[in-house]
């Protein structure tokens, strides 16, 4: 019974916690610019993430190591520092963009500018981390994040051409503006496959003391849960494609995302989308801060746990404290949240090979995963992810200037 509840909670967490500012805005931009043509990027990103999450849970359950811990131990310090620093830097930018997303949502509701909201949001996120437990951070906000199901409701009520949606799941060449098309594709992939997610997941599995008996739960939560969450992201694209394309509107501000469902759901459409723009990114701010602290603590051998009092893991707690309040700066200094989101998603895609390659090697090392090594499907899928990431890394930066 306990395990059934854990599976249910894990599924709900995966669904409710999936959408955040990156996935919402990139999917909305994709839908507005290319209707349903970029559905394949959402699907591919979701499948990739599901595979990586399952692997990270499996690594933690069998080896009793988190990803960062195992990389440090297996490959040694000089090498492990490189992916850790890269992921920390990119995650910081993502965290700042998520904070900007929450600030924008609050601006819609109150009319008070986002610069004034940045610090209070950071303070509330910090309080959640300081006083809360791992379960509260992971599950509490995700349960509230079920409000994002409004995109599913909205998509159904819009009666899109589902055949065209299905057709969009197959990669095609763009019908127009190829640079812009590939730039958004890169952004969608970067929004889906963010390294902090699988690092957070493996640390969480250790926090929850997973062992091999959790492997089936891991498969369901990481696999099925993520696929459902990705479907929600697809619904954002469908809604944007259905609402904005006929009106010839491109998404160049988050305000346009907030108004996506007012036509079909009225005032509640606005309220629930704004709530989605606030809750999902807020959860992401807390998770990224925690994931970053996990990276530093595991890399350097500090005490760490979200389930102990901050004084019992002082360096770990102070690390996320400093990070959360530093992330206020980009928004407080006036950086546009949408631009910051797109840049951070592209940089995420560019940095993926750095974290995925050593991860893949670990998943094939019997000393860590014993008989639970990756099969050829998992290896091929991750190898293709790495190859795709390398290609995207090479093209994404010039695309940034041409299409972004």
């Amino acid at each position, binding site marked *: 019974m306990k395990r059934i509840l854990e599976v249910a909670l894990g599924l709900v967490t995966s669904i409710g916690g999936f959408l955040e500012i990156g996935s919402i805005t990139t999917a909305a931009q994709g839908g507005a610019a290319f209707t349903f043509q970029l559905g394949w990027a959402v699907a591919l990103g979701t499948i990739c993430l599901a595979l990586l999450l399952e692997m990270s849970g499996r690594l933690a359950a069998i*080896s*009793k*190591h988190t990803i960062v*811990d195992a990389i*440090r*131990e297996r490959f*040694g*310090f*000089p090498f*492990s*520092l490189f992916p850790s620093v890269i992921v920390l830097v990119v995650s910081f930018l993502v965290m700042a963009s998520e904070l900007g997303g929450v600030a924008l949502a609050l601006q819609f509701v109150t009319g008070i500018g986002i610069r004034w909201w940045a610090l209070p949001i950071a303070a509330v996120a910090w309080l959640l981390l*300081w006083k809360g437990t791992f379960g509260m951070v992971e599950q509490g906000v995700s349960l509230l994040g079920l409000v994002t199901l409004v995109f599913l409701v909205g998509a159904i009520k819009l009666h899109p051409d589902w055949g065209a949606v299905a057709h969009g799941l197959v990669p095609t060449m763009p019908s127009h503006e190829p640079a812009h098309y590939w730039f958004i594709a890169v952004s969608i992939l970067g929004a889906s496959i963010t390294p902090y997610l699988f690092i957070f997941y493996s640390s969480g599995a250790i926090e929850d003391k997973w062992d091999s008996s959790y492997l089936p739960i891991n498969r369901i939560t990481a696999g099925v849960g993520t696929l459902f969450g990705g479907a929600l992201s697809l619904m954002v694209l469908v809604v944007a494609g259905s609402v904005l394309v006929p009106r010839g509107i491109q998404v160049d501000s988050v305000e346009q995302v907030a108004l996506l469902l007012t036509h079909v759901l009225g005032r509640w459409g606005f309220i629930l989308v704004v709530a989605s723009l606030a809750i999902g990114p807020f959860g992401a701010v807390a998770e990224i801060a925690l994931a970053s602290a996990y990276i530093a603590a595991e890399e*350097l*051998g*500090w*005490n*760490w746990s979200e389930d102990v*009092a*901050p*004084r*019992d893991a*002082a*360096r770990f*707690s*102070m690390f996320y*404290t400093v990070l959360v309040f530093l992330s206020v700066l980009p928004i407080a200094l006036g950086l546009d949240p949408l631009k910051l989101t797109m840049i951070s998603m592209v940089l995420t895609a560019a940095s993926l090979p750095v974290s995925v390659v050593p991860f893949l090697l670990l998943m094939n090392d019997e000393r860590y995963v014993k008989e639970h090594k990756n099969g050829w499907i998992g290896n091929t899928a991750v190898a293709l992810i790495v190859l795709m990431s390398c290609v995207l890394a090479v093209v994404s930066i010039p695309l940034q200037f041409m299409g972004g």
Partner: protein
Amino acid sequence: MSERLHLIHDVLDKMVLGRDKHRLGRVDNLVLEIRPDEPPRVVYMEMSGAALLNRLGRIGRATAQWIASRGRDTPRLPFRVAWDLVREIEPASVVVDVDSASSRTMAWERWLATHVVSKLGG
């Protein structure tokens, strides 16, 4: 009874736990004693930022030396645990006979806990 180990694979970069099984740090470096006509032996494990910096090439070493000699006549050594305090080498950690609550490697942790975290209600 003897046990065979590979220093790089089995010890270096592993998590170190004190006798109370709390995390002390990581094996950031190992030090061998080279003796004439006798097998070299492991004398210390080093656990500190300086030990890590020393592994980052010339710039890292120079930085470590600069930090270690600031305000001192002789440079401060990285924190070391004598090898004979090693009790167990487990798959995921090395357990040493050191009290984590009073160990020098936890000095920053204790200072932050006392002077900052506690004041913030943590």
